[in-house]
């Protein structure tokens, strides 16, 4: 594990990620818009910061957090309470560990979902923009906590689903129906942002750790197929933030309404 080697690799990947973007922007800027960019050195400097910063960030994760997280996921599945197959035989069927014995897995999944989402760079970016655009009525930290809570619940539910073996579409479709109903009652302003936060959550930090947990769990729980059951955790992680963000806005609106009703009838 050579830190420099990992950093070089990260830089290469990030540049490969950015290159098409720069090419497309340059083409449209030069050929279509034909306007000079304001403050070009500053822009270039900013883009260099983004590339170097993201590469450093990824290198740091690969050096420290990812190996540790994967190791912890493995340790979690070797705990005694989830390895008592012979002790409890359900009549007729194969030996089964009751789903509630995996409680540490669910707690770990929740904690990892919440804490990695707080550090997710794309979410920080969107929360910054949202606070700026809303004039401060949406707080960046409030939004990030709401999304993090959603991801935590989502990943925990996802691990529960792997243990139970319920088909993925049942959960997802129920979730979509719940979101549709909630959309009708949530403040209109928050809806696009809530929908966006579903897609934002799952990028650099959360996905690798969550995927390791999901694949590890699916290959250890008897009767699960990593191919069919291992995927799908990310879908859970992007479903629940929509609910929690709308819930956050509903809560904020409700809290705002209460004192104003008491003092005046502005509403």
């Amino acid at each position, binding site marked *: 594990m050579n830190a420099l080697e990992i950093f070089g690799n990260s830089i290469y990947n990030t540049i490969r*990620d950015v290159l098409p*973007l720069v090419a497309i922007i340059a083409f449209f800027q030069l050929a279509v818009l034909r306007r000079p960019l304001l403050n070009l050195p500053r822009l270039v400097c900013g883009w260099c910061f*983004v590339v170097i910063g993201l590469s450093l960030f990824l290198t740091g994760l690969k050096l420290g957090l990812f190996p540790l997280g994967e190791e912890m996921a493995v340790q979690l599945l070797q705990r005694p309470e989830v390895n008592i197959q012979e002790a409890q035989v359900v009549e007729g069927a194969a030996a089964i560990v009751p789903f509630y014995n995996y409680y540490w897995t669910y707690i770990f999944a929740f904690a990892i979902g919440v804490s990695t989402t707080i550090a997710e760079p794309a979410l920080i970016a969107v929360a910054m923009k949202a606070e700026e655009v809303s004039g401060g009525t949406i707080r960046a930290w409030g939004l990030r906590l709401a999304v993090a809570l959603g991801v935590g619940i989502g990943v925990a539910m996802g691990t529960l689903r792997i243990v139970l073996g319920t088909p993925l579409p049942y959960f997802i479709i129920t979730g979509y129906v719940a979101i549709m109903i909630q959309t009708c009652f949530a403040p209109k302003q928050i809806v696009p942002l809530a929908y966006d936060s579903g897609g934002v959550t799952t990028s650099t930090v959360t996905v690798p750790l969550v995927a390791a947990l999901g694949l590890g769990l699916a290959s250890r729980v008897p009767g699960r197929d990593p191919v069919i059951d291992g995927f799908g955790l990310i879908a859970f992680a992007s479903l629940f933030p929509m609910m929690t963000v709308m819930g956050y806005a509903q809560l904020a609106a409700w809290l705002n309404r209460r004192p104003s009703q008491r003092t005046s009838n502005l509403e």
Partner: protein
Amino acid sequence: MRTAVSLRDLRKLMHAIGFPLWNSLSDLLPIIAVVAVFQLLVFQQPLRNAGQLFLGLSMVIIGLSLFIAGLRLGLFPLGEGMAHDFARKGSVPWLILFAFCLGFGTTFAEPALITIANEAAHVKFAEQAGDEARALQRTFALTLRTTVAIAVGIALMLGVVRIIKGWPVQYFILVGYCFVMLITPFAPSNIIGIAYDSGGVATSTITVPLTAALGVGLASSIQGRNPLFDGFGMIALAALTPILFVLGLGIIWP
């Protein structure tokens, strides 16, 4: 004159780097707490490689601070600037083409998508061996990548048209999810998980801020649009269309 300006810029720049270091540390505190609690209290094991872990964490903190400074200096101004310029030019077809290229180009080159596509192809043709199967695998991986990239391109296109017209995003999302529910039962079971996951994978850490800035910039430069209500929503579309398209690919693929 020039040096004075650049000196001021430099000071602003130093401030832009220095200030967020503390913020980045507080962003990472939850992860540190979770790792410490589980490692020390639940597993009751000492931290191995503490030095490497510390090095990694310092890199993460510096990297995150740089990234956020870069957002403020480069990504956000560029996205909003281009949105304003397109709005001033008033040429809708070019704007739509730009949105499609942005979505397609960035997604097709996305490393996470390349990994997932290869993995999915490997899984799908696992029982077959030989050169023919390997060729099939490669074709499938490439088709999957192209499908997701086209889906994201179309999503950004739709997102731009939606902002121009002022249509609420929930209609698109509701109709889209209805379609997803309708076609899920017809898709082969080994593609469903991949399809649902591909929605989250397609939106990378660099594309998301740029898309947000583009949407917000566009909504604030068109009269009658609210940046909060109309500006957001593009990422949601970009997370939805890949699910639909990959499910469709799973049904069509022989």
